[in-house]
């Protein structure tokens, strides 16, 4: 269970598995960002666990899925990242504004910088096709 006192986004005690993990994360404009692929917990002074951050991307989902598939996912993800010790995408718990059927954060999707793949695909595939900026 995760406690909340100094984290305004979390209003009550959570069964993290039921209310947090695998939830859709929506940015401040209501647009989808990612799913909560894993969470980073921290042990507070009073011994209880608190949510430090939400983790996203194959670097987080791989290990959580577990098994051989999970390990491969993480291995491939590590190969594709230029840094020496890549960290999974991270949203600090302070950014969380509330949770209902999704987890809402106060930043915009662009600010969160979790959308590497989306930006790559947008730039090299989608934007090259005419009409990419027309909504229905």
């Amino acid at each position, binding site marked *: 269970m995760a406690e909340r006192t100094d984290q305004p986004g979390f209003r009550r005690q959570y069964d993290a598995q039921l209310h947090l993990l695998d939830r*859709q994360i929506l940015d401040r404009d209501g647009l*989808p*960002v*990612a799913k909560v692929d894993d969470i980073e917990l921290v042990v507070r002074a009073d011994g209880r666990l608190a949510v430090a951050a939400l983790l996203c991307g194959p670097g987080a989902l791989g290990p959580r899925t577990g098994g051989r598939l999970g390990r491969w996912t993480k291995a491939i993800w590590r190969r594709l990242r230029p840094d020496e010790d890549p960290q999974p995408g991270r949203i600090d718990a302070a950014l969380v504004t509330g949770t209902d059927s999704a987890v809402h954060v106060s930043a915009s999707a662009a600010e969160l910088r979790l959308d590497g793949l989306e930006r790559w695909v947008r730039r090299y*595939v*989608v*934007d090259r*096709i005419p*009409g990419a900026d027309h909504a*229905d």
Partner: protein
Amino acid sequence: MKKLFAVALGILTAIGGFVDIGDLVTNALVGSRFGLSLAWVVAVGVIGIIVFAEMSGRVAAVSGRATFDLVRERLGPRIGLANLLASMGVTFLTFIAEIGGVALAIEIATSVDEVLWVPVVAAALWIVLWRVRFAVLENAFGLVGLALVVFAVALWKLDPDWMDLWAQVTSPRPGANETWTSYSYYAVALFGAAMTPYEVFFFSSGGVEEHWSEKDVGTMRLNVFLGFPLGGLLSLSIAAVTAVVFLPAGVQVESLSQVPLPVAIALGKIGLAIALLGFFAATFGAACETGLSVGYSMAQFYGWSWGKFVAPRQAARFHAVVLLATVVAVAVLLTTVDPVAVTEYSVVFSALALPLTYLPILVIANDPDYMGERVNGWFANALGSVYFVVIVVVSVAAIPLMVLTRGGQ
């Protein structure tokens, strides 16, 4: 008045959009080999899809989220991934079959081999998915799909022995030339054709695309409770005409070019033209739906932005998946594989994947976190549970029957 028009449009679209290549091929084939003795399977399948479509539509309207979107939350990443792979796999196979079906429909009209039409169809399809508004896409192909009513008209014109047809319906057993094994195999195939998984993903995601809210639940139910059974009757009329014309003649339907013959016999060239138009609309519409569904499943599992209600560049990964799926589907069809064979496999594999794809819907529709007061009542749960047992039985039987009948021979 405008509301009445909108409701009527919804129902008509549901009827016309119900039949896809799987229903076309399977019903025509079954009618020619078993008459109407498997009609009960169509009825059971239609009721099943009604039960689950209503649930997934209600989920979309009440929670604002598509059913597949919620699968990972409720079932965890491992089962969610298994669900994704099964659903995407089967939907992709169906997607290939639908594109092949469009190409076949054009082949019948032009006598030019379907393989040559595949790239043309896929290009047209992708442009439609890229540019055409979701509502227009749904309504256009759904309404033109109503042309398939010509099969019911042809049945009437053929003036069959109605008592004999009814006797077939009420004697659910294989005839002299067929075995119980092949009868059961085609029961599984018909069931899979009626309950293809993509229909509920698409229905649910479509609800989000069209911004359904709780007040749309009533209209949604009307579409489902009226439109789907009438769509099922369309499927049965295809089986009935082949039962009337082909069964006594000893012809087994194995290609799409045989399917409109009874309509030609009954109604001449005009009837044939309408039937071909119906084939085109039904398969093209279903190709749109399955193509989008492949994208929906993946995007909703990983939490990407998705849908046609945002600009393509806002949902780049979603559109890239759809594009990739289209390219791979074309590559598969260009190997000159028979689209009818692909269709037959797609319905059986749909039957196989049913439990994995339908269980989450039942779970989510019961979750008060998403549904509030609109969770399943006892009736929906009773039906859902009964169907779940049926689905598991069908799924378990699918592969053994396929092996035993060597793919339906």
